[in-house]
Each structure stands twice: as structure tokens, then as C-alpha cells.
């Protein structure tokens, strides 16, 4: 039946509850007289409800999330090269004390030296850049795959993701 072929496309919206009142009524009328479409609608409904139930698995408890956070902190330390520890009370007080100020001056000189050494180190480590470039290329490839294009037409300029990639490349250059 030609009408069924036309309706097939609307059946998804009907079962997903995304039709306007008028279309909904027209489809309901058709389903009352057409067992084929009625069966399809029933099958779709079952598929949707099975899929929706799957998400409602019991969510992990605090112990899981505690372990998750510890692992995440460890990985972040590796990524950023920093040790994460809550700031001790003594240091917090010291920061505001008068005695601490000259220390700040020394620290900034030291920091400047470290930054210089680090940039020299980075300069002689082209592998890091190559790895990060590879990652960016892979992400862009993923987007192309998703869009089914060469990635230049659908992604508009000024797009936040482009900016995100921008930032990655800025920090790796």
C-alpha cells in the first residue's frame, strides 16, 4: 500500500512522541485499520522501551567514585607534572605573612629559570609535538568520519571545537 510507505517515515516520530496533534491523529486513524503498520509501531515501541531500561542500571556507589577520583588525580598529576595535595594550614598562613615576601621574589627568579630550561628541553623533544599532532589529526579524522565529509564544509569557522583544537596546538607549539 502506497500510504504505508509514506507513513513508515512518520512511524518513528509517532512512537517517539514527536508528532504534532494533527499528524498524530491521522496516524492513529491509519493504525486502527492497518495491521502491518500497527505491528511495526508495536515493535518500535518495544525496542525503545528495552533501550530506555538499559540506562537505568544501578549507578556505582561512593567506594567506586572514591577510587575513581584517586586514579583520576594520579593520572592528572602525570599529565600536568604536578603533585596534588590540599594546601596545609601553615603554608596558607605563611603566604600572607610579611616574612614570606622575599621568598616570593626568589621563587619567581627560580620559576623563570625553570621555564627557560623547560622550553629548551621541549625544543629538543620533537617527539612530544609529533605525538600531540597525531592526536589532533585523529580527532579531526573522527569528526570527518562522523560528518561524512572532508570536514571543511560542515564545521563552521569560529566553531568552539576548532578553538579547542587551536588551544591544543597553541600549547604544543
Amino acid at each position, binding site marked *: 500500500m502506497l500510504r504505508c510507505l509514506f507513513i513508515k517515515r512518520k512511524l518513528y516520530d509517532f512512537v*517517539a512522541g514527536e508528532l504534532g496533534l494533527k499528524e498524530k491523529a491521522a496516524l492513529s486513524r491509519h493504525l486502527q485499520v492497518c495491521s502491518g503498520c500497527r505491528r511495526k509501531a508495536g515493535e518500535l515501541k518495544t*525496542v525503545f522501551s528495552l533501550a530506555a531500561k*538499559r540506562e537505568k542500571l544501578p549507578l556505582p556507589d561512593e567506594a567506586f567514585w572514591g577510587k575513581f577520583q584517586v*586514579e583520576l588525580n594520579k593520572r*592528572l598529576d602525570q599529565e600536568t607534572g604536578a603533585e596534588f595535595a590540599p594546601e596545609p594550614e601553615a603554608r596558607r598562613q605563611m603566604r600572607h605573612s610579611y616574612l614570606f615576601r622575599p621568598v616570593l621574589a626568589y621563587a619567581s627568579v627560580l620559576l623563570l629559570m625553570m621555564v627557560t630550561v623547560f622550553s629548551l628541553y621541549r625544543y629538543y623533544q620533537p617527539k612530544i609535538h609529533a605525538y600531540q599532532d597525531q592526536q589532533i589529526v585523529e580527532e579531526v579524522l573522527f569528526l570527518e568520519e562522523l560528518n561524512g565529509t572532508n570536514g571543511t564544509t560542515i564545521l563552521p569557522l569560529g566553531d*568552539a571545537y576548532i578553538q579547542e583544537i587551536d588551544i591544543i596546538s597553541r600549547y604544543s607549539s
Partner: protein
Amino acid sequence: MNTEAAAREEFVIQRIRSGDRAAFEELVTMYRNRGLSIAYNLVGNLEDAKDALQDAFIKVYLYIEGFRGQSKFSTWFHRIVVNASLDFLRKKKRAVSVLTESLQDNIKEGDREISDNSLGPARIAGNQELNRRLEDAIAGLSLKQRICFVLKHQNGLGVREIAEILRCRRSTVKVHLFRAAENLRRKMNVYLKE
């Protein structure tokens, strides 16, 4: 999200920008459940979902400057979780293909046995079996169809947000959703008949 929660989120994001790890932990607590749920629905088990979600949170921390507030933070975050989950699947697929090459013959033999034994609606008992069938059917969808279907029907995201996450038109998302549903219905209808 009410205005108070939105203000708190904005504050927390500002703190993360200045490298505040305690603020980052707060953000993790705010978003971990929905992040895990999306990752789980894409990668298929809790252990892998946990790893993919950690990858995603690390990206959030490292690239928080990339979030300019042009979309909702949740959308930006969901996009990173989807990316991290797919990255994870890709890496795993590579590892698995190396591992299984030597076992190829055994696996083929095993597969045939399983399908021969389990085909036909008469042998299927209960919802659990149906769920497993649906898992397999979802896994067999194309990448685009699977992502759209999972985000909409398993994570309850709207078409508009999915379009923002995937950076495509809403009509494109709807086409993928329709095709995914039609494919699943066809694959499942053998088991749905009673």
C-alpha cells in the same frame, strides 16, 4: 538547572581555569554520573566506561580554556565524553585484532556453535535475553546511527543537543535516528513476535 546551580557551575569552571584542583573535583562530582552513563552506553561495560570517563575528565581539565560558554557546559562535556569513548573503542579494537589474529579459527568455530544453538524465538526466554539481542543489534549499527540512538534513547538527550554534540544539523540527527530505529526493529522483530 536552576540559577543558583548555574552560578556555582560558572564559578567552579572559573576556578578550574586558574588551576584549582579542588574545584575540578567538585565538577567531577557534578558530572560523573551522566558522563559514566553515556560512556557505558557507548563502550558497553563498566570498567571500560570508567577509563573512557577518566580520559574525558583529563581533557576537560587540560582544555578548559577551549570552553568559551558558547554552548552549555554539559553539551561541551558530553561531546568530550563521546569523543573519549570512541577513542577508547578504537584503541581497544586495535588491541583486540592483534590478540585474536592467532585465535581466528577457534573463534569462528565458537561463533557458529553459539548461533546454531540460539537461533529462533522459541529458545529465547525472558527480558535478559532480549536485552542481549538488543545489545548485539545496537553494536551492529553504523557509528553515526549508534551514537544518535544511544544518546537519544538510552541517555535521554534531545535531538537539538545531539546535533550540537555532533556538530551537524538536526535533520541529519533525525535521519540517523530513523534509520537506526528501523534497523533495530528489523533485527529484533524475529524475537519480538510471540
